[in-house]
């Protein structure tokens, strides 16, 4: 179903940025809702087997989203996302950081700035995400903190499956 949808992932080590582009087969209203509504974000933001669980969300400039990534063993990694600027159904600029359950920033990790752009393109929506990190080590930390164990197992299985079907 999504094999014909554009997906581009570029890492620029010199600028410490990651640029992700993805098309979605839906109208802008729906895609925007999926990115800006807590109960919808909780359904897709956590990559399996992790699940995003919103504690509070205040989607407006100056507001923030406080959520946990919940692992298969129930372990939680808290994140906070500060909304710096919002252009309705066009763009969201946000600052992401790791924190505790009260939203107190974890100083061990520096923050990253995300600029998300939404464009209706025919009957598809193109989302551009530009993530800027202070250092690439922070990027590495994001993986080791949240997703690594669970995801790696999945990937190994996937790799096995792919090589078996080749």
């Amino acid at each position, binding site marked *: 179903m999504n094999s014909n949808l554009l997906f581009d992932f570029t*890492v620029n080590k010199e600028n410490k940025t990651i640029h992700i582009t993805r098309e979605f087969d839906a109208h802008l209203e*729906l895609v925007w809702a*999926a990115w800006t509504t807590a109960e919808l974000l909780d*359904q*897709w933001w956590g*990559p399996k087997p992790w699940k995003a669980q919103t504690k509070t969300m205040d989607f407006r400039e100056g507001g923030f989203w406080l959520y946990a990534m919940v692992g298969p063993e129930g372990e939680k990694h808290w994140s906070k996302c500060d909304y710096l600027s919002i252009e309705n159904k066009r763009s969201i600029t946000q600052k992401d950081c790791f924190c505790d359950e009260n939203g107190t920033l974890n100083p061990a990790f520096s923050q990253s700035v995300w600029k998300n752009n939404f464009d209706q393109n025919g009957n598809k929506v193109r989302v551009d995400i530009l993530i800027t990190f202070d250092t690439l080590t922070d*990027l*590495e930390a994001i*993986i080791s903190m949240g997703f690594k164990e669970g*995801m790696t197992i999945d990937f190994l299985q996937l790799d096995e499956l792919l090589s078996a079907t080749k």
Partner: protein
Amino acid sequence: MRRDIFQAIADPTRRAIIALIALQAMTPNAIAENFNTTRQAVSKHLRILTECALVKQEQQGREIYYTLEIEKMKEIDQWLEQFRKIWDTKFSQLDTLLVTLKKQKK
């Protein structure tokens, strides 16, 4: 001193050194000939790359040759690929959700 792999590749001279010795093992002098910087500056870059375990030294007769640790370079790629896959998973989940939302709307 602990260094991380991304620090190693953050510098353009170090990336150029990696590209050079990816083709063949080279002595520090031969590497330095490719740059306008001093021999000392190149030595410093080689030391950092060694500390990151991206290159290793091999003694051949009286000369020391630097070679690239291909496996360590692969770590960078594998790690980036992992990050890409995380996003791929998330986006597939969003695709599914969007289909559900569309049906609900109808």
